[in-house]
């Protein structure tokens, strides 16, 4: 069969990249915020492991409890906790935005951008306030 035969063309089309093609998809605030919701959701799921571990140590093993608490109050531990609280704040606020969308409000592009910026601003303000004041 020739290289440019009809069948070959169809095969080519079947292998087309699925959208959105991440290497050529232009990052925009909308897409970044959208994937951030998913990303923070996964981080939060992983942090429930930490909560579970902390509860377990606090309840059953005072040695492990001391080690874990020392870690959480070390610099690295505080950075971990900072990112968890950042994720939680962001996910909560953006989740609210999701739910407002689900009721049919805020869909025009102007409002999507506006609420997006409001959420970034609030997330940063709340976390800076909690951690530095």
């Amino acid at each position, binding site marked *: 069969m020739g290289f440019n035969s009809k069948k070959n063309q169809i095969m080519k089309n079947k292998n087309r990249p699925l959208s959105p093609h991440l290497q050529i998809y232009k990052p925009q605030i909308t897409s970044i915020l959208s994937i951030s919701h*998913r990303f923070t*959701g*996964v981080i*939060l*799921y992983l942090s*429930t*492991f930490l*909560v*579970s571990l902390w*509860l*377990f140590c*606090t*309840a*059953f093993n005072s040695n492990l409890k001391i080690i874990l*608490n020392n870690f959480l109050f070390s610099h690295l531990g505080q950075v971990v906790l900072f990112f968890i609280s950042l994720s939680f704040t962001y996910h*909560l606020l953006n*989740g*609210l935005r*999701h*739910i407002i969308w*689900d009721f049919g409000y805020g869909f025009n592009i102007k409002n999507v951008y506006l609420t997006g910026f409001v959420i970034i601003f609030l997330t940063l303000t709340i976390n800076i306030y909690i951690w530095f004041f």
Partner: protein
Amino acid sequence: MFNFLRKFFSFGFSKDGLSHWIWQRISALLMILIFVVIVFSFQKLPIAFTKDFNSWIKTPINLILFIIFFLVVVHHSTLGMLNIFEDYVQSKKRKKIISTLLKMISFLLIFISVISAWNIYSKIV
């Protein structure tokens, strides 16, 4: 109606997409509600979190609040993680294995946390 109720009380874990979607949102709203209550009740103990948590959870209402919160969080996030695997895992068989594994892990998380919380609650200090 009966069919709807059956789907609804699968808590989002049936194959039905609508009930998954609704429960993801119900749990989200519940979390916001409980979270606000917890933050307000925490405000009464502003010393050291690790010590305070132990005394905070010794009040029965707080224990119940915490357990419900944890249940809702794990419910919500398990539905969310299932959704993510639904999107990125192509093979049906692998999807089945991963979702079973995920549910088991979530169940274990709940089991460990509830037992531990109960233990802290009933410890005499």
